């Protein structure tokens, strides 16, 4: 199975350094709207970091199937990538992504690309709340349950 950003909400402190590192790495700016990982929070008890699990959480190939221009594909390493040249900004993937991990930025769709295999968010998460690993089914179930509460 492809490795991706796996959330451990039971360890997430809600500090948002993952969002900071992500936006800074990809866009050279700090802005949650430019981050491909988002920390969803509710009350004092829930902190859920969410990034694309490369098709594992949502069920295989979801965004790839809905993209009308075929701009979303899986690259040889297994990472789901968006071709910015052909993306027309129709927002269909953004609206229909069940995990809500696609961001619209300047009229194009963006999502976690695992920073070329060295995810920056994981590097700054001292709490171990996000991990670059293979997901297991139990975790996926739990994340989806939590999502109902906060996303």
């Amino acid at each position, binding site marked *: 199975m492809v490795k991706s950003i796996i959330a451990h909400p039971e360890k997430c402190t809600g*500090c948002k350094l993952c969002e*900071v590192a992500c936006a800074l790495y990809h866009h050279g*700016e*700090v802005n949650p709207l430019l981050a491909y990982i988002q920390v969803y929070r509710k*009350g004092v008890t829930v902190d859920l970091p969410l990034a694309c699990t490369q098709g594992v959480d949502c069920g295989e190939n979801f965004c790839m199937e809905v993209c009308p221009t075929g701009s979303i594909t899986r690259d040889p390493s297994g990472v789901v990538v968006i071709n910015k040249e052909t993306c027309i900004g129709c927002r269909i993937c953004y609206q229909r992504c069940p995990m809500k991990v696609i961001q619209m930025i300047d009229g194009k769709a963006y999502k976690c690309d695992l920073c070329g295999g060295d995810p920056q968010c994981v590097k700054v998460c*001292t709490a171990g709340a996000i991990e670059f690993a293979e997901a297991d089914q139990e975790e996926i179930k739990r994340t989806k349950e939590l999502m109902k509460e906060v996303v």
Partner: protein
Amino acid sequence: MPPAGMSGKMLWIDLSKPSYEIRDVPEEWYEKYLGGNGFATKILFDMVKERVEPLSAENPVVITPGVFNALPVPTGGKCQITSVSPLTGTFSDSTSGSPIGAEIKHAGYDALVIVGKAERPTYVVIRNEKVEFKDATPLWGMTTHDTQEEIKRIEGDRRMIVASIGPAGERLVRFACVDSDHRQFGRGGLGAVWGYKNLKALAVRGTLSVRPKDPRRALELLKRWTETMKESPAYRDDTKYGTGEFLEWMNRERGTFPTRNWREGVFKEREKIDPYYWAPRYSIKNKACYGCCKPCGQLFVIREGPYKGTALDGIEYETLFALGSNVGNPDVEALAKANLLCDQLGMDTISTGGVIGWAMESYERGVLTDEDTGGVPLTFGNPEALLKMIEKIAHREGLGDLLAEGVKRAAEKLNKGSEEWAVHVKGQEPPAYDVRGIKGMGLGFMVSHRGACHLKSGVYALELTGKFWRFEGVDRFSAKNKGREIKEMEDFMAVYDTLGVCKFSRGIYLLQNYRELLEANLGISLGEEELLRVGERLNNMKRVINLRQGITWKDDSLPRRIKTLPIPEGPSKGSYITEEEEEEMRRDYYRARGWREDGTVPEEKLKELGVI
């Protein structure tokens, strides 16, 4: 041009009209005051020209993100609310790790200033350059946490960050706090200033980018410092046990954990309020301030029993004293509940525990009677009485109305000799350091601009361990040569307040390490001496504001209990601060600051610092 990472804009809100205006930050401010607490100080310095009544339309509320908020600097997420305090009448800045500081920067502002008084309960919504004034009548009376959730619901935005007061702020409890995202701007009663202004809440959603000068370098530094923090010796204990980590040491090794209204320095019944007992049992994960990679917050959850369902980000060291030892409470579950009640009702835990400790001693001495307490047996070690009294204070019911005034005013009103055991400096109830056995910290309490405070000098760590930064061989039982120590530590700490860096990182960053962070993020280069100069400038300005507020050298004094009752038992047995030592330390401090003997600031000093 403002430095990188700063917007150069301030938002001025007038609640009376209501109206708002976006103003440019004068460019020289960045050089002289950096931002954050520096800007708040400058704004109050310019606005408080003569005495301002804390509860008045004229008293400004300034909200400032720390310089490093929304920039990739780990533990740089602290922000502040600054105003004239209804508890002390002085300049008062209260810090929190709420993400609202970063959100304000994302909305495009380096500072918010709120003046005037709304006609009816109001909450203010800021979405970048758009500001709305909304009716908060339906929210009036709600707890802090409910208010925040309700506003997010009404505004249809779960990512919005809200700061709000609770019933205590509405009723002008003089130590009411502002809560935001389960973190508090606790000290100084600034929640009452909001209440007076009919300001129930402030909701912010920003969508603008904050751009470091050199994004690549800034990211590298973020990763490096994150790793450094994780590897620091403090990481394990801070994250595992929180700020109360050294509670047992403070009792057993130092005997300086104030207990039962500062009658004792060791809390014998401490076993279950020690985080080494409760963290493994009740803490289910860490909670962090915005941007913190060394999270000391403990998510404390009670799953069964009378307090079932209690969940809070706590319990902090100061609260373990205030709602624990100071009121003789050994029951950690009741303590957690009391802490949560204070957060929800919107009251500073330190002052709440301080004033209740005073009331308990008054009751035990027969100065307060059952008639006064409404039948509540207000004895030390009675958690039910503690919880009842917290509610009564927040709603100003019965005796709560007197206690809501803070310990200084309450003792003045009650009289009957109760000032003898009223423990405060400038009206503010002190935090958990028994300064009878930490004399330099005693001076810190005396001269802190916001009344008794551990954070403005932060000298407790240096005094208790004997060394920190440029100081070593410090003797906590001695009152000699404490002037320069406190002066330099205050200037040091003012830098942290301004940059918005957590003071628990002070041993990791120190000051010289900010140069590279300031270069990469702001594009300015400042070394230790230059930063200390900013700190010194700000501390002098805060003093001038306090002098305008009518503070004199007489207010730079310790409470009678500290000067008359030696610590009765433990490692600090017999220690207290004499009148002579108090006088010596005060003079020594004024000299170190270059102030006159009466504690006033000579004009030349202000000129030398470029203030005037």
